């Protein structure tokens, strides 16, 4: 095993309380150690040293993303091309990068761990195959659960204990790390052409089941199963003006339980309809501050092209009707659904301008950076490779104010971003890009540079490039102790791990699921679970 000493760099390691201290980081093999003798020395004088970035919510693999890749050939034509090289596979970047390019782009930006946030069990095999082909970065993924009809039937019948065994069996069947709930009940209702935007009203197709019951039951089940990552929740009523009421009500439903609210920007709109839509970031940030049991990520929006991909089928149909852009819809049997609509966020468009502002407002108004993380809900609000643009907006209030001036007066009157003077420090950036998301995901060995941590280190130049960006081109990126990026070039392509959680459950539950499954699914029950041998680089965690 090789040893490396990174010397002379200014280290930001918030998990260990290190705020801009010049110190050496020593690496032996794939871990950070206290000291090494000999080996390679990287002179990091005049640079800043961060723990490798962690993306808590992104869509980089699986059925929905692949559907999106197929739906937008025009983006692929315009995208950056990766030509194959000695140690690199060919691919394309753009809004929906190919698997190999995804790994190169994340690593090239200094991110070393990504969490694929939406996996139907039926396409879990496909997702694991694609994650294996996403090199360098470590991965985890979350299974979609809040519209699974077998689980919903049990929750409606009040059989929460049996539901817990079913959920645990499904988590292990999909070989995933955690659980995602998308528009609880809304995707099931979409199969009846309806949505579920009221938390306490029964869902189409059910007698008594409400979204609130699904949310609180799943949050409890996840806590009882001791999953490292709490309920990862895409709230009901995404994207609609006035949805702050739903979001705040969701926080109340989650009272006393841990949860992660995904892409909060899309759930923080005030007003009553599109003409009166305004930022609801102040109300949401206030409510969020009062719920220390919650974490969130921004789901920030950047102006330009995007592709919206979500299991939230009814919202995607709405977006298609609003924009007239092409629309893809998938029905994933009895588990979930999926919609795809390409989208362009325009700075002259009032609604888009408000969305852009809300993402930044949430990041700036929520005071504790340990509870709010940097994401764009890639590729929904913008591509992950544009994170450095958001970091610049957070760190430079003058630049931010200049950008606000580009917006129409109408848009400016609907946002509060112009009144916020907060500027992120490098220490806080290290929290929202790495230490915080690693902690929320329960990766104790990630997001920090303490002894024993994974040697995922990113070394950025301390001076911004000509375009004002600080984090676009890391000088070095180390992943698991290997130098994968050096002077902006991919040097080594390693294979990342995939983290999987194995919850405990009663093995007999399979005999309960089998007849239900055989009655309603199109595939045979034996072919449903993902075999562990299929997941290459799997690291199974049990509690």
């Amino acid at each position, binding site marked *: 095993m090789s040893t490396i000493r990174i010397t002379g760099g200014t280290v930001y390691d918030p998990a260990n309380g290190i705020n801009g201290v010049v110190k050496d980081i020593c690496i032996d093999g794939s871990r950070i150690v206290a000291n090494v003798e000999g080996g390679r020395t990287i002179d990091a004088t005049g640079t800043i040293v961060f723990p490798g970035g962690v993306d808590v919510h992104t869509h980089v693999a699986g059925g929905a993303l692949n559907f999106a890749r197929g*739906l*937008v*050939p*025009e*983006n692929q*034509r315009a995208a950056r091309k990766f030509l194959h090289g000695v140690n690199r596979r060919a691919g394309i970047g753009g809004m929906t990068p190919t698997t190999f390019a995804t790994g190169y782009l994340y690593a090239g930006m200094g991110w070393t761990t990504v969490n694929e946030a939406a996996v139907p069990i039926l396409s879990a095999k496909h997702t694991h195959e694609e994650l294996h082909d996403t090199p360098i970065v470590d991965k985890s993924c979350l299974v979609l659960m809040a519209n699974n009809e077998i689980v919903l039937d049990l929750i409606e019948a009040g059989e929460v204990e049996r539901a817990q065994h079913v959920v645990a069996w499904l988590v292990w069947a999909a070989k995933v790390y955690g659980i995602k709930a998308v528009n609880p009940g809304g995707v099931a209702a979409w199969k009846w052409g309806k949505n579920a935007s009221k938390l306490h009203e029964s869902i189409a197709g059910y007698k008594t089941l409400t979204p609130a019951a699904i949310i609180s039951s799943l949050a409890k089940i996840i806590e009882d199963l001791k999953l490292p990552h709490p309920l990862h929740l895409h709230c009901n009523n995404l994207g609609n003006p006035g949805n702050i009421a739903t979001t705040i009500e969701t926080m109340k439903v989650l009272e006393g339980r841990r949860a992660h609210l995904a892409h909060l920007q899309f759930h923080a709109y005030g007003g009553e309809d599109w003409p009166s839509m305004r930022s609801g970031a102040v109300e949401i940030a206030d409510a969020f501050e009062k719920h220390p049991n919650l974490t969130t990520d921004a789901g920030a929006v950047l102006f330009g092209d995007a592709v919206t991909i979500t299991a939230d089928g009814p919202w995607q149909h709405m977006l298609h009707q609003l924009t007239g852009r092409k629309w893809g819809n998938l029905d994933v049997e009895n588990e979930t659904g999926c919609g795809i609509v390409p989208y362009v966020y325009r700075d002259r468009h009032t609604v888009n301008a408000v969305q852009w502002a809300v993402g930044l407002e949430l990041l700036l108004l929520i005071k504790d950076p340990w509870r709010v993380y940097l994401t764009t809900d890639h590729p929904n609000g913008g591509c992950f490779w544009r994170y450095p643009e958001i970091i610049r907006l957070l760190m430079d209030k003058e630049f931010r104010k200049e950008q606000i001036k580009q917006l129409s007066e109408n848009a400016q009157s609907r946002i509060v971003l112009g009144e916020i003077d907060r500027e992120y420090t490098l220490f806080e950036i290290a929290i929202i890009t790495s230490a915080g998301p690693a902690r929320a995901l329960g990766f104790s060995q990630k997001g920090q540079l303490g002894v024993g941590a994974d040697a995922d280190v990113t070394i950025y130049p301390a001076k911004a490039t000509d375009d004002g960006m600080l984090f676009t081109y890391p000088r070095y990126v180390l992943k698991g102790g290997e130098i994968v990026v050096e002077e902006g070039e991919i040097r080594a392509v390693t294979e990342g791990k995939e983290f999987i959680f194995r919850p405990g459950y009663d093995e007999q539950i399979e005999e309960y699921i089998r007849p239900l499954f055989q009655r309603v699914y199109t595939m045979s029950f034996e072919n449903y679970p993902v075999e562990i041998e299929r997941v290459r680089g799997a690291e199974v965690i049990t509690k």
Partner: protein
Amino acid sequence: MITLTLKEQPNVPLEAESISPDITAALSHDSICALPVYLGKRQRRLDDFFTVEGDASDEIQINGDARKVKWIGRGMTRGRIQVEGNAGMHLGAYMKGGTIDVSGNVTDWLGAEMTGGFIRIRGNAGGQVGAAYRGSASGMSDGTIIVDGTAGLEVGMRMKRGTIVIGGRVRDFAGLQMKGGTIVLGSGAELRTGAWMMRGTIVSLKPLPLLPTFAAAATYNPTFLRMYARHLRTLGVSLPFDERDGGYQRYTGDASVPGRGEILIWHAHDGATA
């Protein structure tokens, strides 16, 4: 003037986007000979397939049956490409300016997504003339394409602006999902002309089968066609407009979208010549 003479027909299509005035304008003879072309996945030299004469010019003449040579003049902004013979798919795709003149036939995706310039085909063209590539929101957004002969399917599909004139018969779906611009059909078209058209004008000098979602609006001689006719005459195209010769029946649609496009069909008076 640079002259490229095809030595032999490549066995698979040759991708030759390096044949463009923008690229050759400042190159020496040797550099032009060494320009990369792709035969399947293999990179080859231009002079493996063409005899190259001349250097450093934005005028290119191609001799021979280059029907398998794709992407000639891709994205060109100036100069002239003269093809004495045939040319392959994607001729002048994405072009921004300059002129392409072909004595023979071309095939699909002629001038696809072009934003300016002039293309003249003396023979026939294939389908998707001036169209949007699959997935793109819009096709050609300016410039002029004139085809003396026939054309294939989806002529001007999703075009946004600019002019396409096809002298011969056109196949199905001319002006499919058209968003603007003008298509002139000298000899009419087959089925579903103007399907899903949002805006824009399709002028036909011969009767054509109309979709039921187009409604008859009027018979008239619009002033703007008089101006079009004057402009097109300078390009060698004759468009009737005089009310003594006949009139245009105007149909609006496609109501299934719903769109505000128009199809104008020329009806000559008895005995009038047009």
